[in-house]
């Protein structure tokens, strides 16, 4: 245990990649769901279409919609913070479940 102050956490962000398999890609409704989920975590949550970036704040609905990620794209997540592991599991799960859309 280091003597770093409370609230500090691992410097290395958690990352994952997941194919966007829902029918419409990151359209408005999936973007809203992704943003709402990202906002439920204290960690910073970013996404990109390329592991080299550019990275987008996944808590910003406007920025997420502007990514215009189409079906078949690969989404990369980069998450840093106290609940990064839980956030990464949740974000990947949402994409894998096709955003819980009935016709997704």
């Amino acid at each position, binding site marked *: 245990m280091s003597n770093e102050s409370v609230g500090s956490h691992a410097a290395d962000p958690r990352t994952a990649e997941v194919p966007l398999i829902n029918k419409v890609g990151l359209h*408005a409704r999936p973007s*809203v769901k992704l943003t709402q989920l990202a906002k439920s975590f204290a960690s910073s949550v970013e996404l990109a279409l390329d592991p080299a970036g550019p990275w987008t704040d996944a808590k910003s609905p*406007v920025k997420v919609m502007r990514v215009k990620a189409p079906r078949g794209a690969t989404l990369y997540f980069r998450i840093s913070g106290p609940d990064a592991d839980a956030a990464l599991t949740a974000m990947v799960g949402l994409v894998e479940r096709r955003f819980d859309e009935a016709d997704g």
Partner: protein
Amino acid sequence: MAPDGMVGIVIVSHSPKVAEGAADMVRQMVGDAVPLAWTGGDPGGGLGTDIARIIAAIDAAWSEAGVAILVDLGGAETNSEMAVEMIEESRRGRVVICNAPVVEGAVIAATEASGGSSLEAVKSAAEELYVQ
């Protein structure tokens, strides 16, 4: 979640159909948790906006965390400004008009509000739509 709950959203359009349709989009895309009200049309049934109805919508969507108003054109904005001026002083500072497109702004503002963001953050998120 902010201690005062979620920011409320008010949609003001000249057309009741536009206002109701934008509210439908918010409900379907964001959900029912965010306080939401809409108003559109003048008392005679034509296109327009009405200060008393805007005040009623602010009351209906009221949250201690504040209310963000989305407007369409001209009179919707000026009448909304007058409605804000006419509500009591204790609440006036917690009602803001967003410089954002009414439909997209309502969805984005509600999305931001659903995460428990402050009134300032809700307004900024909607206004990001006009930032290139």
